[in-house]
């Protein structure tokens, strides 16, 4: 996505390759937007975790189901949406991975990591599956100028 564009979206298969591809796209776009190294890692990892959820837990690798990944720059935010066509998830059933009794569980940290790394994480059901929205505030030169003028 060139930074002159405001939004770009991809329709991807429910495969392991999609997870790597989503991460690569996030890394490239975050770099182009001027995020720092730590923020780029956070964004790319959050997108990777979101893609894992969509491919594994949402679409369950079903070849006839797709993952839609979109990046949008709106105002001072990078908004990323990842939609699957799965059965949906009940957030109340996801245990707190930091609770002592859950520390040694081998899964269940994906959403926690997304929430740790992004400014906003929203998960909502859609008519066809689940949509994950991730927001990271842009702290590049444009944002700095905007803040300085206020």
């Amino acid at each position: 996505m060139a930074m002159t564009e405001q939004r770009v979206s991809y329709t991807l298969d429910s495969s392991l390759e999609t997870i790597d591809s989503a991460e690569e796209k996030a890394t490239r776009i975050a770099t182009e937007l001027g995020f720092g190294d730590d923020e780029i890692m956070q964004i790319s990892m959050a997108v990777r975790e979101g893609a894992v959820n969509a491919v594994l837990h949402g679409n369950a690798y079903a070849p006839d189901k797709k993952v839609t990944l979109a990046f949008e720059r709106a105002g001072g935010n990078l908004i990323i949406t990842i939609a699957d066509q799965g059965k949906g998830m009940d957030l109340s059933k996801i245990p707190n991975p930091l609770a002592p009794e859950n520390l040694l569980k081998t899964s269940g940290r994906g959403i926690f990591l997304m929430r740790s790394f992004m400014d906003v994480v929203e998960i909502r059901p859609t008519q066809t599956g689940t949509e994950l929205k991730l927001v990271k505030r842009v702290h590049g030169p444009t944002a700095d100028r905007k803040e300085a003028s206020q």
Partner: protein
Amino acid sequence: MKVSTRQVDGITIVDCSGRITLGEGSVTLRDTVRDLLAKGNKKIVLNLQDVNYIDSSGIGELVSAFTTTKNQGGELKLLNLTKKVNDLLQITKLYTVFDVKDDEASAVSSFK
């Protein structure tokens, strides 16, 4: 992800490099630890010096390696964490679960 193993004073050092992520990386780590335990090598150090990326699946695989080794009467320790991996273990509160070492000599001697 690539791994190679070596023995130092009866301790198995597993030198890992690359990414521990869903798919090949996690499977490689799982298979390596299982093979070591099956051969009776129950004192294991995972040298993560050249591991530059771990996702939640990779974290889960580290936990699995730790508990599997412990359940078989062994010990598994981590060595030379990169800042990224260190930060991940901190925010997931796993830093206090794992025995993390900064240099190989102290990691090896800590088993005695």
